[in-house]
């Protein structure tokens, strides 16, 4: 009875482009997590916000870790917190902020789990200063059905640690994580918005910025307005605002896709982007905002994602070197205009880090592009793949649910080493997902 709590669930990627049914378990105790059968293929799942199918796969038991969400050990002198993998970022931050602590690397949605962040080695609002999530992880415990519980860190079992950070759950199930927290400089962030005319200007602004939060947003619709955008720069600032819990209605892959069709098309995308740009011109240059609102902008601004409806969206994120970024953005503009690509918005971030396992990291600029889906979308993405290869870019596997294996081989620099290490570590590849199958990691 205790091991029979498994159901069939249809999982969908957050971008809405890929669905499949498989067995699903939500363990709430260790005996359920372990299962008696050590040969069952499985894959851990966190909040389910990955755009690629890294947390589910055909014939693989999905072990949803959201009940493993407890704080385990706090060291106030070292500012380290050991917690379970299913703790959400909002729970982490709402606990840390009143204690004058925070975690610097936060992706945009508050219900993403800490375990998911390690598995995808995600980045935050200024990876040039803060690096990626794994840079703030001191220790992990990984459960593998045939190897048991394994502790790893940069010093102990370093190969497993390196493979697990950015390893998309393929080394086992992360059960707990010790995070290095940072002292909270102040309870608010002064966020400035500067209008820019193009990507080059934004790149210059980001390069010369010393802000704590730094990224840009651009109109990416084909046409004369392409590249017009806003550079966001946030600095910690004193404020009389009290820290208050964040109120938001949780968005999941299914609630995101409630609209039967996408409301985004060439016309609506242009109107929305123009409205954002106009609003920015009319608004104060600087606004003081709470830490949580600045860190999780998609918690309250859900319409961008929801309006893609059931049709879903396509996103590509890639990292390109500082030397190539100018040439890359120019080529990207030409590609979008030439193919009349259904692109909506584009974002730039300056990046610094070290590439690990399957993660996207290095020094350069991150380019993120969101598209609504129509007949031209797949053609555009194929051409974009070629462009990324030509520019020596790295693709973010967690943001694109269709990256073909031959493109991954050329754009994820650690994939060959990762594959060799994984095959040696786990000859049977017990941990499997659609992503691992697609990339030939079975």
């Amino acid at each position, binding site marked *: 009875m205790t091991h029979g709590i498994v159901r069939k669930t249809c999982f969908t990627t957050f971008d809405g482009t890929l669905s499949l049914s498989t067995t699903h378990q939500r363990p709430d105790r260790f005996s359920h997590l372990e299962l008696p059968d050590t040969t069952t293929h499985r894959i851990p799942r966190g909040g389910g916000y990955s755009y690629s199918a890294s947390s589910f796969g055909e014939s693989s038991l999905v072990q949803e870790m959201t009940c493993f969400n407890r704080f385990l*050990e706090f060291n106030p002198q070292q500012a380290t917190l050991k917690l*379970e993998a299913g703790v959400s970022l909002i729970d982490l931050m709402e606990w840390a902020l009143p204690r004058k602590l925070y975690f610097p690397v936060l992706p945009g949605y508050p219900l993403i789990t800490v375990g998911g962040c390690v598995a995808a080695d995600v980045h935050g609002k200024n990876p040039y200063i803060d690096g990626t999530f794994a840079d703030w992880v001191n220790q992990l415990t990984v459960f593998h059905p045939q190897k048991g519980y394994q502790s790893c860190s940069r010093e102990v079992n370093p190969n497993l640690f390196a493979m697990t950070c950015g390893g998309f759950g393929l080394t086992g199930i992360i059960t707990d994580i010790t995070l290095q927290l940072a002292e909270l400089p102040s309870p608010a962030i002064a966020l400035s918005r500067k209008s820019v005319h193009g990507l080059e200007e934004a790149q210059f602004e980001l390069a010369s910025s010393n802000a704590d939060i730094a990224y840009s947003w651009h109109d990416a619709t084909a046409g004369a307005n392409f590249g017009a955008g806003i550079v966001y720069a946030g600095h910690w600032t004193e404020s009389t605002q009290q820290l208050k819990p964040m109120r938001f209605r949780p968005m999941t892959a299914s609630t995101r896709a409630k609209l039967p069709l996408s409301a985004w098309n060439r016309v609506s995308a242009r109107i929305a982007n123009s409205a954002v740009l106009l609003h920015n011109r009319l608004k104060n240059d600087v606004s003081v905002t709470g830490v949580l609102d600045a860190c999780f902008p998609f918690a309250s601004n859900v319409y961008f994602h929801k309006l893609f409806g059931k049709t879903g969206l396509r996103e590509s994120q890639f990292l390109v070197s500082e030397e190539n970024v100018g040439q890359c953005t120019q080529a990207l503009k030409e590609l979008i205009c030439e193919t009349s690509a259904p692109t909506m918005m584009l974002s730039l971030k300056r990046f610094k880090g070290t590439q690990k396992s399957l993660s996207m990291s290095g020094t350069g600029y991150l380019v993120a592009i969101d598209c609504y889906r129509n007949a031209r979308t797949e053609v555009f993405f194929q051409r974009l793949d070629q462009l990324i290869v030509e520019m020596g870019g790295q693709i973010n596997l967690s943001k694109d649910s269709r990256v073909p294996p031959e493109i991954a081989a050329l754009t994820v620099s650690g994939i060959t080493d990762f594959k060799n290490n994984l095959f040696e570590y786990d000859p049977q590849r017990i941990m499997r997902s659609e992503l691992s199958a697609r990339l030939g990691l079975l």
Partner: protein
Amino acid sequence: MTYIVVGGSSGLGRALAERFAAAGCELIIVSRDIRDTAPLAAHLAIKYEVKVSPVAMEMNSSPLSLDAIDEALDDHSPLKGLLMPIGINSDDDVVGLGAATLLRISRINYLSPCQLINHYLPALEQSSGVIVGFSSVATARGRGKNAAYAAAKSALESYFESLAHHTADTGLSCQHYILGYLDTNLAFAQDLPFPKASPERVADVVYARRFSSGRQFCPRPWYIPYRVVQLLPWSIFKRLAF
């Protein structure tokens, strides 16, 4: 004041532990596997800065050895409450089930809670505390399925009524909840005809009523299908497959 939460590491038990810890109560959390109980105790202590002790105990034994809980109590403030969100059912729980399963279901759902009540009743009477038990809408009427489970939970309901009668003139609060579907692992894989309530919501109700006595459906609308099933004529009821 200290509350003992039996079956406190997951589901409704965990939600109750969180709710009472959030209110600043000290806790002793009891469950079978210390690997589940200890992390929750650490979590509540870190999050709410309250004293929480984990205790591992197998409820499928008779009589229970309560020494570990008693020892933990020595380090805590006086006992104020006993919360028992424990229960177990089984897919093979039909009339004619094996003796081992029958005993297990009877112990965990009925005998062990009764022994806990009896053991801690004097202390709780002294502190004008609260005893909280939980059964299920499955007790509405005996069916072919969940036969031993429904019988054990019905027996527990009866024992709670006796307890309320016995302690009527004391300051003790005695609460018994009849639960509908809850979004816990017990119901995770089941296709159910009604929505599942969140354990956190039920925990809020239990906390808010901690000084009251009596029997209550939770969520309250479950009273309607419960009574409908009870009032169905036998000629119809015997044909229902649920």
